[in-house]
């Protein structure tokens, strides 16, 4: 994304027509071109609405993937202008097989209020994926029919994929070592 020298960066014009349609319906969304793929950064409050729009009006009948990322320890934060970065991002990839297109939607989720609306009313296939995000990163999806842990045991405490959760390496000892490595 290039800007004029000295002037504030103008929001990039979407090269992708679906992204353009999203930006038209949701004016506060921001478009980004990620290595040739269309990405729209939308507000957390509009998350489920965007999904509904994509499915009903743009033909994205499949939600391919829902995941999230914790940016707590990032070296360089990759964030387009116009998006206020938060600690977590929830990422959803969509596919329109009839149009043979993909689009990605990202919303910022703050640490203090780690929740977003669930996509399961629109895409039932996001069920397991959102449970995994809750289990491993602690982001609650409102409206999900079964917001419980899926991968860790039910009584596990903590959310392992968060950056402040230690990987819990056991020190490895070899025969003859004076001390554990």
């Amino acid at each position, binding site marked *: 994304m290039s800007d004029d020298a000295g002037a504030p960066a103008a929001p990039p014009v979407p090269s992708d027509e679906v992204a353009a349609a999203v930006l038209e319906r949701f004016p506060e969304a921001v478009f980004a071109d*990620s290595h040739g793929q269309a990405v729209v950064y939308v507000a957390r409050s509009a998350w489920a609405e965007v999904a509904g729009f994509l499915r009903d009006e743009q033909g994205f009948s499949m939600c391919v993937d829902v*995941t999230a990322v914790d940016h707590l320890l990032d070296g360089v934060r*990759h964030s387009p202008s116009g998006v206020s970065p938060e600690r977590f991002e929830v990422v959803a990839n969509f596919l329109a097989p009839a149009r043979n297109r993909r689009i990605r939607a990202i919303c910022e989720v703050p640490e203090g209020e780690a929740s977003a609306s669930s996509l399961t009313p629109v895409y039932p296939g996001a069920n397991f994926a959102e449970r995994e995000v809750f289990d491993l990163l602690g982001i609650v999806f409102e409206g999900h029919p079964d917001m419980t842990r899926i991968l860790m045991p039910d009584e596990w405490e903590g959310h392992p*994929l968060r950056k402040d959760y230690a990987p819990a390496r056991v020190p490895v000892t070899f025969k003859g070592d004076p001390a554990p490595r």
Partner: protein
Amino acid sequence: MIRDLDPAGVGRLERQTDEGAQELRARSREAVLPGGPWPEGLGDTMIVNMGPQHPSTHGVLRIMMELDSEEVLRAKAVVGYLHTGMEKTAEELSYVQGCTNVTRMDYASPLSNELVYSMAVERLLDLEVPQRAVWIRMMMAELNRMSSHLLFQASNGMDLGAVSMMLYGWREREEVLRLLEMITGLRMNHNYIRVGGVAADLPDGWQEATLAAMDLVEKGVAEYDALLTENPIWLERTVGVGLITVEECLALSITGPVLRSTGFAWDLRKAQPYLAYDDVDFDVIYTENGDVFDRYRIRLYEILESAKIVRQCVERMPAGDYRTQDHKVTPPPRERINESMEALIHHFKLFTEGFRVPAGETYVAVESPRGEIGCQLFSDGSARPVRMHIRGPSFYNLQAMGPMVRGGLVADAVAIVSSIDPIMGEVDR
């Protein structure tokens, strides 16, 4: 001999019912929600647990079923018994080491995992891989598809009671594994497709070995076809079992042979070609009924299509480099380390720190034997990923189990889980 694919020509056997015997209840086709809270068993029903240690759950899958005598009213899949923390481990490993981790997710087709991860990293690096490497990758991916589908034939047969299929399927799979061992050095978890290309060039004599293996596999597939496809017991157990529609598949994010069995010929190799798939000639196999029999046949014929692609790769393999010459990403040849200080430094940096990837994020998807496998990768300019998420097809395909088993018998549930072909390594990661 292999008959032409004729989805409607097989016909369905009429269900024979005795007078007074119980009819199977009609399956309801309402919209599905795979999760849901699990209330206590109501009245005469029984809640039964299948797994996680069970001979036919394809790994450590636990299925809780509510049964009314032999009929399944409801089923819920409980996963997580193989959760390995691989995505957390990926944040500790450099991009060079990442393939060793990713390859153990879908352990029946490890090269697909390596491929999708390598392609995601290369996308973030804007790195182009030489043509020979592209074709080698494609050939290896197809060999892996064959070995995975042969494993499916073996375990599917065994689950349904055709125990001899286990031995037949493994006989041909051993041929493909021998070939993979010759090329990559390992039978499984190869760590062969790496960022920048592949780990080593194809060995001498690979063409003859590959063609010989293809002949054996094609002969084996003809035998399985003759054994099973018109076998009345097989048809009775698989035709009309585990029905699913294309709308349900799309709503539940299901891809791969399960989606293709519903009449929708969606295959990423044709729809969104990667590597050199738009340059080779092959067909996408699909059927229309959406039952277990269809999924068996799709995977059977996909073995033949993969053999077709492999034969084309043998004929048309381009000469050239097997990995990129950019030594910031791939290690220099070992002999050079003795001669060149630069090579030594590159080698040192690659195997200690790894290479840095500019900040960004991407999603790359390929067609694994189970469906669309994707890698969502976030980088921050350092040598380790911020987040590496693999979209495992079996994780989503298991959501199909709910609607498919409802209204069927317990034995059908075994057939259905087997036809989804889940690999728990990529479900739980």
